[in-house]
């Protein structure tokens, strides 16, 4: 088959994204678990492991640039490589959010959290589910399934936003009640914000998956479905 090696290289690049997605997902899970359990060693391990995510992004970038140079791709091939670079950068940022949560955990030290973590783990579950779906969408290569996955990611992002607003309102209320709460409430607010951003990045990846299969840029989420927006 023509360009068999190039096709293998493209598939390899996609596998790297799946692998990087796994690293990032594990980092977010561990960061939130460490925060909830007050496990500072685990938080430190999340911080240390971020280098591996950064290295993976660099590897993907080098491979993508090599393919651009060697193959001078156009059409879907070009979009795939450009989208891969974009997704790798989004995943690297998600890794940074996990690292950020781990750093917050270290700042909190051995103090217990201000309140029991209920909504933040919920937000995390949804955001991670969005992340997995976004990578699934990215590796679909088929218009209709990609659109439908992207739409479900859009609705989940709305759920995350609602939960984030609730967390924010609750924490502000606690700060109003007692100024001594401000520091610890702010830590949790930062953590919640980081998770909210994870969900946004997953939405960006879904948008890139749509671009990959259609060549068109759309906004995922909101009242309009992807099919309506195209």
């Amino acid at each position, binding site marked *: *088959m*023509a360009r068999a090696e*190039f096709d293998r290289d493209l598939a390899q690049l996609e596998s790297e994204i799946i692998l990087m997605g796994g690293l990032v997902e594990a980092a977010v899970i561990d960061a939130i678990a460490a925060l909830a359990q007050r496990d500072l060693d685990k938080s430190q391990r999340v911080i240390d492991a971020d280098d591996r995510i950064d290295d993976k992004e660099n590897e993907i970038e080098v491979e993508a640039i090599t393919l651009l140079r060697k*193959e*001078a791709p*156009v*059409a879907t091939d*070009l979009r795939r490589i450009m989208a891969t670079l974009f997704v790798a950068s989004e995943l690297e940022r998600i890794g940074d959010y996990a690292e950020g949560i781990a750093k917050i955990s270290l700042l909190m030290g051995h103090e217990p959290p201000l309140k029991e973590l209920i909504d933040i783990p919920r937000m995390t579950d949804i955001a991670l589910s969005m992340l997995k779906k976004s990578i699934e969408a990215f590796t679909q290569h088929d218009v209709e399934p990609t659109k439908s996955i992207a739409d479900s990611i859009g609705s989940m992002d709305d759920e995350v936003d609602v939960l984030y607003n609730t967390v924010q309102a609750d924490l502000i209320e606690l700060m109003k009640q007692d100024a001594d709460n401000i520091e610890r409430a702010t830590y949790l607010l930062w953590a919640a914000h980081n998770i909210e951003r994870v969900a946004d990045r997953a939405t960006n990846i879904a948008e890139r998956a749509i671009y990959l299969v259609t060549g*068109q840029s759309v906004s995922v989420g909101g009242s309009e479905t992807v099919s309506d927006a195209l």
Partner: protein
Amino acid sequence: MTQTDPVGITEAGLEENIIKFTEEELVVEARDVSVTYGSKLAIEKVSMQVPRNSVVALIGPSGCGKSTFIRCFNRMNDLIPSARVTGEVTYNGTNVYATDQDPTEIRFRIGMVFQRPNPFPKSIYDNVAFGPRINGMDVDIDEVVERSLRRAALWDEVKDRLKDSGLSLSGGQQQRLCIARALAVDPEVVLMDEPASALDPISTQAIEDLITELSSRYTIIIVTHNMQQATRIADYAAVLMAGEERVGRLIEYGPNSQIFDTPRDHRTEAYVTGRIG
């Protein structure tokens, strides 16, 4: 689609995947143009419009009929005894193949540059002056030679050696001389059949820069095998392909963003991404 024709090239592209222009924009147009060599059909019912002051690239795998097609625009196929052209080619609304049309006059208005530079074994000056002289143009020949060589971006390199043989020039310079020769008779359209394929990268770059420069004044239709070249210099690209039976058909024609970024026809996608051809 059949097993021997895995991407299905027995059908021309869909009407909606072929760009159309208004009468005012048009300079040349092919309508249902077919060419046969003896009993062998080479291209079938190709219809496409070319807008003024644009660069249109004809791309497609070897043997898809690109050269055959480009030669229809100025009746170069008349020079091949077995070739027969049907359909209609218009230049500014006039049928190029009408019986009262003089093919030589058409070839002045629609000039041509070939794959291999083919200067006459004459001086640089005489190569450029050849067309205006035999055409009996009432012009200042010195002025035409200088203007044409300047437009072909060759003047500075040859102004002090105009009496030297055209054959003494390098390959890239010879090709620019051939472009100057085509420009000397004041054409409106210039056809180029792989004009840079026999040149080194630096000469190729010079020709590409020249094409971009010329497009403000002329309409250029260029056959190229180099897809990157098409993306650099053309405004529009037309994809011709031939199936098992080797009959060329127009598959898709549109702006570069359509052909090279988001092709509408899966056969275009397969060709531009190098999966076939």
